[in-house]
């Protein structure tokens, strides 16, 4: 990746011209709508699932779920039919508010598939039965819409709105089980921490606006090169902006909300947060980093995202953050007894590995050729399937045993072999061992970091992987070596199929990764310059 395609910054219509040029400005909206179909489907879908819910009985809480799946399928279909825009077709829509390129379509596909996997989990979740679920699906689709914006934003306004859209809906969904104390605690904590993080980010974005007088990422980047703003101010600005992204991907130092929120939220939504939300966070982080690392008018890379500013090395800052993120996540995971909390810390650790991939690429942005985002994207694909799979199996087990604590998994190997083997493979993949996608994914990340000279970071990451074996293997030991009480049970065909469907991609990505790697490498990426 990527075929870089430079898109001209939008005209920046002045207030004197707006009336004269109004017909032109409006006429392009109609053509842009065609490329905006997946988003439009979601907009209508939000209203549709609530409408369906109005006309169904309360006991029939699955019905809006099927409709939500239909909406997601339709959105997926429009995405696929639209195809991956090639480098020539890549461009921006709605006067430079969002971009349309291969990267955006790829991320949207990933986000939609992740959400579509979460919906059946919602439909089969014990605590979400027999209540009105229209709002839940409406909010879930809304959250996805916000993440579409995050994946394709190119205007600072859209950056902020995408993140806020995804966040507000997430706050509400975390506290969806209103009577539950933990859900309320998680929801409130999420709102408070989230607002602070957004506030910090807006502060950074507003400094960018103040320095350059523009909200268009391309125009901002160009203006920063021309005006030669003070480097220390740029570093502070970049860190302030990073707060918002770090929050979405739960990276150090804004990771502390994750365990409480993950524990309080209903299990399917925890899965959604840990995977889909995180992928959207990485999409917007990559978009931001690339925008401000693009070659300037005189061919020199911008200092905000790449290169050295003062004595501070921006890739090194990212590398240190990645180190802290993975170490904190892994060390804290060692002591956890609740499955959701364990996976919360594990997801923080994985954010660290992914951040390592970003740190490895940053120095190469703006240089000729493919900067090499491919390991990060590949790992996101693998992470989607392995983490959602682990949550899916945990939900089935929790429904049977009535507890989300780890001892509930004891003896699972005897009681339900299919579940145990599935979870075993997901754990192997989360550790990063062959023959799973976790191995090939992590290998590529480590390789990229090593080749770009981040040797210390690679050593820390390998050490962390060794640490993580302890807590993942603890679950494997519980399942196969320990005695558990409770009857054995036969899985319904639907659940068994679902587990197999999740395992297949993990093994496929582990054994035959070439086609996926090739697809990711061929994606176009609209660089704004």
């Amino acid at each position, binding site marked *: 990746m990527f075929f870089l395609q430079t898109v001209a910054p939008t005209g920046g*219509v002045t207030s004197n011209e*707006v009336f004269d040029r109004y017909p032109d400005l409006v006429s392009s909206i109609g053509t842009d709508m065609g490329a905006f179909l997946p988003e439009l489907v979601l907009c209508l879908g939000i209203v549709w699932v609530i409408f369906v819910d109005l006309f169904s009985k309360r006991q029939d809480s699955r019905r809006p779920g099927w409709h939500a799946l239909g909406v997601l399928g339709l959105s997926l279909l429009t995405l696929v039919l639209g195809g991956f825009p090639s480098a020539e077709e890549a461009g921006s829509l*709605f006067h430079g*508010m*969002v971009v349309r390129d291969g990267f955006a379509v790829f991320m949207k596909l990933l986000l939609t598939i992740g959400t579509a996997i979460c919906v059946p989990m919602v439909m089969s979740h014990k605590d979400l039965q027999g*209540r009105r679920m229209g709002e839940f699906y409406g909010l879930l689709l*809304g959250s996805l819409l916000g993440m579409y*914006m995050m994946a394709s934003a190119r205007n600072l306004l859209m950056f902020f709105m995408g993140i806020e*859209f995804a966040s507000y809906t997430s706050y509400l969904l975390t506290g969806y089980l209103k009577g539950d104390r933990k859900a309320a605690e998680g929801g409130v904590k999420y709102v408070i921490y989230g607002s602070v993080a957004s506030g910090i980010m807006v502060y950074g974005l507003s400094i960018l606006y103040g320095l350059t007088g523009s909200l268009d990422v391309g125009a901002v980047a160009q203006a920063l090169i021309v005006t030669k703003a003070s480097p220390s101010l740029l570093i502070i600005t970049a860190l302030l902006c990073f707060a918002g992204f770090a929050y979405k991907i739960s990276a150090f130092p804004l990771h502390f909300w994750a365990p409480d929120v993950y524990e309080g939220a209903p299990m399917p939504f925890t899965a959604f947060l840990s995977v889909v939300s995180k992928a959207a966070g990485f999409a917007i982080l990559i978009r931001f980093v690339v925008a401000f690392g693009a070659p300037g008018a005189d061919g020199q890379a911008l200092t905000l995202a790449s290169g050295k500013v003062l004595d501070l090395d921006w890739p090194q800052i990212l590398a240190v953050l990645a180190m802290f993120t993975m170490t904190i996540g892994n060390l804290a995971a060692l002591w956890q007894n609740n499955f959701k909390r364990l996976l919360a810390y594990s997801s923080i650790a994985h954010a660290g590995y992914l951040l390592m991939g970003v740190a490895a690429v940053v120095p190469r942005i703006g240089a000729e050729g493919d900067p090499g985002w491919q390991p990060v994207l590949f790992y996101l694909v693998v992470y989607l399937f392995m983490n959602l799979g682990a949550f899916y199996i945990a939900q089935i087990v929790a429904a049977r045993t009535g507890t989300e604590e780890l001892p509930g998994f004891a003896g699972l190997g005897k009681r339900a072999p299919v579940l145990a083997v599935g979870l075993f493979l997901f754990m192997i993949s989360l550790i990063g061992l062959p023959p799973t996608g976790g191995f090939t994914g992590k290998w590529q990340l480590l390789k990229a970091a090593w080749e770009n000279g981040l040797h210390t970071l690679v050593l820390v990451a390998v050490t962390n992987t060794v640490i993580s074996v302890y807590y993942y293997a603890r679950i494997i030991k519980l399942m196969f070596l320990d005695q558990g009480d409770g009857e054995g049970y036969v899985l319904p065909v639907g659940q068994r199929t679902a587990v197999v469907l999740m395992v297949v991609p993990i093994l496929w990505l582990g054994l035959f990764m070439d086609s996926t790697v090739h697809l990711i490498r061929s994606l176009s990426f609209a660089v704004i310059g």
Partner: protein
Amino acid sequence: MNWEAVVFWAMATLVLVPAFAIVFSRNIVHMAFWLLGTLMGVSGLYLLLGADFLGMTQIFVYIGGINVLLLFGIMLTRSEPVYVRRLAKRPKLAPGLIIGAFTAFTLVSALLGAGWRNVPGEPTETAGILGAFLLSEYILPFEIISVLLLVVLIGAAYIARRGSREGAE
């Protein structure tokens, strides 16, 4: 003194006098009503500067929304008048004066050193330009915000609804 100066001083008085009254008043309902004057005055200043849209938004949002919300909040929570209690101990004067003087100095020096320019020509009306922008260049954020408001409204209605535990409405 031309008419603009007269209107300016009238509006400035309308901002400042109620502002002092809020600080020295003890009844919280009185405070909310005094706030009305301050907000009106600020809106008048905006209008005077030719920011017609901003001035009207100020009235809609702050007077129509926030001030009414304040009064509703008081009305729904307390039945008897609420008085702000004075501190039992006299607060120390010196730190307050120092911080106040420092803030005043910073603000005044910033205002004096800002290098204000006179905008040439008559102020044009802004509402039309803003409307044209919102429906052309900024149509996407404009429409997305409306979807966001809809979704958040649905969520708020869900959270505020009674009888959650059994899923009853």
